[in-house]
């Protein structure tokens, strides 16, 4: 009975959360329009109450999942009695209604923290930002209250649930969706504060400074979430890859691209008070793309292997998206004069120019991905033929842009702000260029003939040496004061965490690109093997020794034994599985991977014959390990940046001052 009463709290809690969100919007708007500070403070409290009730609703649903309260349609559809405990937690975001509830929890909690922790919470800009956040919360709470009610009840209560999709029963799924949602939802904070600054007319307000940590935090969560999604695809989907340019993958990648552009261009606004229209537009685009991605995954408008949360709510996102975009663009147009840059570029060869080029490439890349993602819809409308656009298209149009961005990752740090002599730049660029050429020549001599692969590796060498040079130049100052090299480098890193932490993130990107470039040497072989027969893939010989069958309450397990040898020497045994899940009546392959920094041997059984013969797909994936290593390095760099205090340039936006060169000052 206790369980039922907990679940019964869910819907009332949601309705209370909705009521308080509406109240927050009214109070924030009243405060902003009539300059009444107490109303704004009351709005903050109403927003906090809305967050509290949303958390209570999520707790109610979670308790119903653990108590197997199958009277709730959501619990019956996405869990079962045999579902392991941790995956019962992930069932909270495993379906459409639960994932929207989880999203709303994050949104209301983040919004409350952002408003309360703001250094000047009574300012009109923050009050308007609170109103925007309350408006967004109202939209999601309306969805939960009506078309996507997670507390809808069944007339006939089943004795057991359908269970969670076997693909989602993976450790990665415990972390990947929450991180993606954290990223998507987190961008609502800088978006709301940007809109708040514009609506209030406080365009000089450094909204980007007060939301910097939110932006970095959201970007970090999204970055790690995307990589974890790749890791999940690699280990669960059984096609030997980690990225397929699937619409749902693209949905997370597009806001990441524009957010990355924003993270770079906002530095120009901080230091030079330039690009203000551009930065507001970028943050608007980022949040709009995050919402668009949510629409894609929930509307079913595009087919995706990742769509686990499809439902009828997708259509609700279109008017919300339209209102957000039109409203945002209208406000930007209204404040156009106040947003114009106060400074201009001093020289073509400058850090500002490098960042501008970086932004152009990132935005072009985001547009390319967006276009490839929506093209099937365009084609269907114009030609009537349902098409899909796969990796061949995306690789052709995106990879060159990605390589250009990688090159700028190496060049950007070498260029100074405002201006730099071409001679000095060429001297600084020389060692990285030599390294890049050496890498390319070495690979060519070693027999690599993939143009894309050689260029990618060469650029990785170029960027890595450029980053190392920055650390060495910074460390020399501490070396001169007597530090050892490790201590000098550590001092350098910790002294300016934003800058050098950023370089560590860049280094992580380099490692990830090394992993991507390794795909140029990928080998795949398919064979149908009788027990005792062998196949070759790359330098490996795989011998299928037979199958063992067993059962658990959840699934029938078909475990293949594959002996692996290399050059006649045994190197181990792999056990790929092809299982059958009873609750879902669904087959599911479990991949076996032998991973090393040099290459992965990836084996999957796609089917078994009744006589025990097995269809085996085997891949040799060079350097894939470096993708995951790069993600760890990226996460370390992000931690360094986030652990830092207010960076030196943080207040520059308010003063518009930038260090003058000594010579010029003299």
């Amino acid at each position, binding site marked *: 009975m206790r369980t039922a009463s907990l679940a019964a709290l869910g819907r009332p809690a949601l309705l209370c959360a909705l009521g308080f969100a509406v109240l927050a919007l009214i109070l924030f708007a009243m405060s902003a329009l009539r300059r009444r500070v107490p109303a704004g403070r009351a709005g903050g409290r109403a927003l906090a109450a809305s967050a509290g009730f949303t958390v209570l609703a999520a707790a109610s649903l979670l308790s119903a999942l653990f108590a197997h309260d199958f009277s709730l349609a959501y619990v019956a559809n996405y869990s079962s009695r045999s579902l392991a405990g941790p995956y019962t937690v992930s069932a909270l975001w495993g379906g459409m209604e639960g994932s929207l509830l989880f999203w709303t929890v994050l949104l209301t909690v983040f919004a409350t923290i952002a408003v309360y922790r703001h250094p000047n919470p009574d300012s009109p800009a923050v009050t308007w930002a609170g109103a925007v956040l309350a408006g967004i919360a109202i939209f999601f709470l309306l969805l939960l209250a009506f078309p996507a009610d997670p507390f809808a009840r069944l007339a006939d209560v089943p004795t057991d649930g359908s269970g969670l999709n076997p693909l989602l029963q993976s450790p990665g799924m415990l972390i990947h969706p929450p991180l993606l949602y954290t990223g998507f939802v987190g961008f609502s904070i800088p978006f709301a504060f940007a809109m708040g600054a514009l609506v209030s007319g406080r365009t000089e307000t450094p909204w980007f400074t007060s939301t910097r940590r939110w932006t970095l935090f959201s970007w970090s969560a999204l970055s790690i979430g995307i990589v974890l999604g790749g890791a999940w695809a690699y280990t669960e989907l059984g096609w030997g890859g980690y990225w397929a340019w699937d619409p749902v993958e693209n949905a997370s990648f597009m806001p990441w691209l524009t957010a990355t552009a924003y993270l770079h261009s906002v530095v120009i606004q901080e230091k030079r008070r330039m690009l203000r229209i551009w930065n507001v537009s970028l943050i608007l685009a980022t949040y709009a793309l995050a919402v668009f991605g949510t629409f894609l995954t929930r509307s079913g408008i595009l087919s995706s292997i990742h769509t686990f949360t499809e439902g009828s709510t997708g259509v609700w996102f279109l008017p919300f998206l339209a209102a957000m975009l039109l409203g945002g663009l209208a406000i930007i147009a209204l404040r156009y004069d106040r947003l114009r840059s106060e400074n201009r570029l001093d020289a073509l060869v400058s850090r500002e120019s490098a960042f501008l080029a970086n932004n152009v490439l990132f935005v072009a890349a985001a547009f390319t991905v967006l276009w490839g993602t929506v093209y099937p819809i*365009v084609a269907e409308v114009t030609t009537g033929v349902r098409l899909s656009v796969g990796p061949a298209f995306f690789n052709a149009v995106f990879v060159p842009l990605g390589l250009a961005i990688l090159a700028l990752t190496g060049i950007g740090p070498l260029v100074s702000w405002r201006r730099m002599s071409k001679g000095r730049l060429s001297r600084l660029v020389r060692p990285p260029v030599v390294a890049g050429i050496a890498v390319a020549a070495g690979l060519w001599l070693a027999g690599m003939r993939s143009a894309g692969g050689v260029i990618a590796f060469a650029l990785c060498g170029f960027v890595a040496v450029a980053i190392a*040079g920055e650390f060495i130049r910074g460390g020399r100052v501490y070396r001169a004061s007597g530090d050892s090299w490790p201590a000098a480098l550590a001092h350098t890193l910790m002294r300016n965490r934003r800058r050098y932490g950023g370089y560590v993130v860049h280094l992580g990107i380099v490692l990830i690109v090394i992993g991507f470039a390794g795909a140029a040497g990928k080998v795949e072989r398919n064979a149908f093997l009788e027990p005792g027969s062998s196949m070759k893939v790359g330098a490996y010989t795989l011998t299928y020794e037979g199958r063992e069958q067993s059962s658990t309450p959840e699934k029938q397990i078909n475990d293949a034994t594959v002996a692996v040898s290399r050059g006649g020497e045994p190197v181990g045994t792999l056990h790929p599985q092809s299982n059958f899940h009873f609750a879902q009546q669904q087959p599911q392959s479990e991949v076996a991977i032998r991973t090393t920094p040099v290459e992965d041997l990836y084996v999957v059984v*796609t089917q078994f014959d009744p006589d025990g013969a097995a269809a085996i797909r085997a891949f040799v994936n060079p350097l894939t390990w470096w993708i995951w290593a790069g993600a760890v390095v990226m996460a370390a760099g992000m931690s360094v940046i986030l652990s830092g205090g207010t960076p*030196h340039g943080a207040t520059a936006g308010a003063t518009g001052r930038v260090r003058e*060169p000594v010579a010029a000052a003299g």
Partner: protein
Amino acid sequence: MKRRGLGKSAGQTDALHQSAGQREMGRIPGPTRTGPRGSAGPTRSRLGRILATIMLVAAWLLLATAGVALAATPQDLATDISTEIASPYCPGVTLHDCPSAAATDLRARITAWAEDGWGRARIMAKLSSEFGPGIRAVPPPGGSGTLAWLLPAGAVIAGAVVVAVLVPRWVRKNHDQAPTGATDRPLSPDERRRVEGELDAFRGAVRGDQWSQ
């Protein structure tokens, strides 16, 4: 402890945390290097930028087409083709990534065709005739398919135009308006002494570990 000498005003960075280029600023500020150099200069440099833009876009297109590598073996050809067609059995997924048994059979058929000496075009034609034109997971040639390929290139060109044309114009406007404070001269002995003195003070502060983040 309050820092002396190279102390920062808001928005400034100290000598240690300037980029390598900034550390050299005292020697070569260089604004005059980017200014107009006579009547022919801007025209020539604009032409150079346009040529550079064209070359960059050409390189991009070359690299894009280089992605279609020649398959080494019939199995590699079959794998390539399976990544270029949509699976008839898994909506939204290429044949290569489709886990169904029917997809496994179709991949085996394609491999068999490749081993029989069929080329890419013949296999694609066979698949199109069997499953319809929608099986190709790339925009088709002609019509909206051409637009699909050209629009990303258009985005790149538009971006390149912004960088190559608008930014230099932006810089020139600034030069027209900016006071000519900085020069391309080397540091005077007095200035050099000031810099060295402040760097010494800075190093002393570092040694005493008196700075904090």
